[in-house]
């Protein structure tokens, strides 16, 4: 399992991104962190270059919908639509469905307990219907996606 934790857009708040990156690394996930103010295009490029399974976007500025859309569209256009995208940050409840309809696999709004975020990636303690990002689903998606990448 390899993940790119990325800060798209102009938001400079990186506490959450770094805490999640740290926790996932401690849980055995390979983590790449983008640093601040990356464009969606740069994030797509990094995700493909680093051959990650998941891109985690951290956005606290309210710009999550357009930024997530551009990353997902960019991944699909680059033939890397098998890379899952998750979003964390200040996300009002009414925006969660919209993000999911764009193709965001999971949304972790402010206040999500850290163990629940980690479990979503490691597959431990996750309910089976929660769209786990863990090793099993990753292997399946890798097989599907191998030709495209």
């Amino acid at each position, binding site marked *: 399992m390899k993940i790119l934790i990325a800060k798209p*857009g*102009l*938001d*400079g*708040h*990186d*506490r959450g*991104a*770094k*805490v999640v*990156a*740290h*926790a996932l690394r401690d849980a055995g996930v390979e*983590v790449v*962190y*983008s*640093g*601040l*103010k990356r*464009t969606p295009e740069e994030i797509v490029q990094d995700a493909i270059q680093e051959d990650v399974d998941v891109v985690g976007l951290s956005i606290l*500025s*309210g*710009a999550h*919908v*357009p*930024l997530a859309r551009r990353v997902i569209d960019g991944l699909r256009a680059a033939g890397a639509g098998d890379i899952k995208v998750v979003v964390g940050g*200040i996300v*009002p*409840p*009414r925006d969660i469905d919209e993000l999911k309809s764009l193709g965001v696999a999971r949304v972790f*709004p*402010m*206040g999500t*307990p*850290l*163990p629940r975020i980690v479990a979503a990636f490691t597959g431990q303690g996750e309910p089976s219907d929660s769209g786990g990002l863990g090793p099993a689903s990753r292997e399946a998606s890798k097989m599907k996606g191998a030709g495209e990448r």
Partner: protein
Amino acid sequence: MKDVRAHAGFPIKPVYGPEDLAGVDAERDIGRPGEYPYTRGIHAHMYRERLWTMRQYVGFGTPKETNARFKYLMAHGQDALNVAFDLPTQLGLDSDDPRAEGEVGRVGMAVDTLADMEEAFAGIPLDRVSVSLTINGMAAPITAMYYAVAGQQGAAADRVVTTPQNDMLKEFVARGTWIYPVDPSLRLVADLIEFSAKHYPRSNPVSVCGYHIREAGCTTAQEMAYGLAIAAAYVELMLGRGMQVDEFAPRISFNFTAWGKIFEEVAKFRAGRRLYARMMRERFGAKNPKSWMFRSLIGGGGSAFVMQEPENNIVRGAYIALAAALSGAQTIALPTYDEAYTIPSARAQLIALRTMQICAEESGAADTVDPLAGSYYVEALTGEMERAIGDELARVERMGGIVEAIKSGAIQAEVARQAYLFEQKLVSGEIAKVAANCHVGDTAAEADREVALYAFDPAALAAQVARLEKIRRERDNAAVARALARLSDAARGHDNLMVPILEAVKAYATIGEINRAMKDVFGEHKEPVGF
């Protein structure tokens, strides 16, 4: 017996007594309010003579919407403003810049040109209302716009009271609205301080922030230590320009947070005032008592608040207001209960203002100065905090000083490490958050409950861009080009950049154009990335 520790790390005893004050010299260490070393506060009679200023952080959408919200809060008794700018403005991007997509008017109001600042302060007399501008990388042009609007209104320069945040060093550690590399960023900080000290004697041209570094994860002691180290760096910067310390130090102000353990926060401010006074008098040789005073806005940290059962945050806000009042704040601002979801609604902002007013008018916290003085616990804790802050200051020195430690990313790494430790304490329950990690209620029922939230108006973007395009068409574009060329030339040399920036601003140059004129010369900051 339960083990209890301060956020700063040292243990808290179950009982304190006279033996805990063994090393304290009451005259030397505690003194009187309004007297050196100001442990008990910077004014002799504090809130009996003047209540703290109530200054909620406000700004969203267009300047027109923000102006209406300013007036709404002022009509309910708020006596000063604290302006939030959107991220494109903070980063020097025009509202129609492709990189601004989705961000215009989101976390603050959009400002492209002087016309926006004129609209934001229409009907607000800038010779009577003090205004904080939460702006850093673009502090010079935004403050220039503010000075220009004040001039248009006919306000005398010596009546203008504004506090641009203008604290770039903390932006490299937390908050992240850096643009240029560290050294040219510091030059702009110094240019604004110097220009304001000469021409706007009542402005506070830098507000040194521990707040955001604490919000990014550091401890209470680190918050104060990093803030003091950053303040010292700015003092050295100005001394390096040939200014005398008493020419600018009286107008240095501070912005810190107060959430968590009430007594630890009070001790942090009491220790911080003492350390700052000694530093300014003994290390920098300041003679004017105003140069020794740690004047602070205390803003409740939004990270104190949780998403679960958000109305409980109103109660948390009341404790923060109490902590800030007991700490001797000059200005208080509170986060709003809905901050974990989105920017504040008008209702939430009014509740925050009412919380401060209740604390001021009803609780008795404003009746007497530094009411916790002499408490065995609080005096011992003040001493512990002073030692802990001193330890952190010594660590900063071992990293090569605050500027070097920021350039290398060492401070950022330490803050991230502390943020992770804090999160682990939330997971373990060592740090309690009611309804989030203890006394958790019916989460399913809670998830279905509606919280009335502010809704972003996408029409704001179109209005802002239309206005910007109109100004670009109608202004004297030759004058803009001349002003921008002069700005780039000045950036290559050593003259104070506020002069050409003011000229560009008055010609209605955009924030993006002004930024580009400097970025072409200064280049961009490269972040030391890590976690």
